């Protein structure tokens, strides 16, 4: 997802508990109203379970849990965002369960404040509040 220096990049803004998250649009494959999920016993709390997407099994992660978010407003339109996670040959489809898909925004590099901790690569100030920019290549390290 490299972009020209200074060129705005498009991000999908998601609500997750009491936090906002931003995922670069290039990693997003599809957005659904929350997919039904089959829980897996023994899973870490970040893994909601397995769904099916286009006839294929899809692990679904809880975005609020990944961010360590507290409870937010009751979700009125929860979504599952199907994204590409990982890098290069290890790329795989993963679902992110979020409380809502709020907006598409353009962000320039100079608006991003690097964080470099866990799956959060940066923070950015948006009209809705501060959003945490997710580095989807680091999901498995959460």
């Amino acid at each position, binding site marked *: 997802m490299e972009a020209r220096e200074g060129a705005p990049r498009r991000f999908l803004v998601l609500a997750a508990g009491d936090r906002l998250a931003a995922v670069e649009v290039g990693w997003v494959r599809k957005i659904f109203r929350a997919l039904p999920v*089959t829980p897996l016993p023994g899973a870490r709390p970040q893994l909601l379970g*397995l769904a099916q997407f286009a*006839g294929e099994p899809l692990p679904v992660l809880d975005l609020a849990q990944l961010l360590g978010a507290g409870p937010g407003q009751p979700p009125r339109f929860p979504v599952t965002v199907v994204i590409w996670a990982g890098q290069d040959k290890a790329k795989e489809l993963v679902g992110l369960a979020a409380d809502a898909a709020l907006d598409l925004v353009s962000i320039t590099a100079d608006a991003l404040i690097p964080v470099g901790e866990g799956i959060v690569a940066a923070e950015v100030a948006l009209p809705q509040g501060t959003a945490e920019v997710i580095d989807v290549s680091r999901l*498995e390290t959460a």
Partner: protein
Amino acid sequence: MTLQAYLLWRALGATWAVPSSAGVTIVKGEKPEIHVGDAVFPADEVLGLAQELTVRQAGRVLRAFWPYPCLGLAVVDQQPLVVLPPSALSKVLFQGES
């Protein structure tokens, strides 16, 4: 992708499969059971045999958040399931009991 026969069942709120070549026996009834060797695993429901199951390798994300051995993942009748190696059945299905 592999083509092979698998026994499918539901337990612990999820759907599971094991290769039928593992010497699996089904005990049907009100409380169905899956027998693999000397081990007995209670099932909520035995779904039957799938002759052609398209098994996908579990990705790194699933393995990071569900730390159990598995042969892969599949979908049957729009239901995702986990294909387990016979050697992992006890570890997965008797969590917290050992």
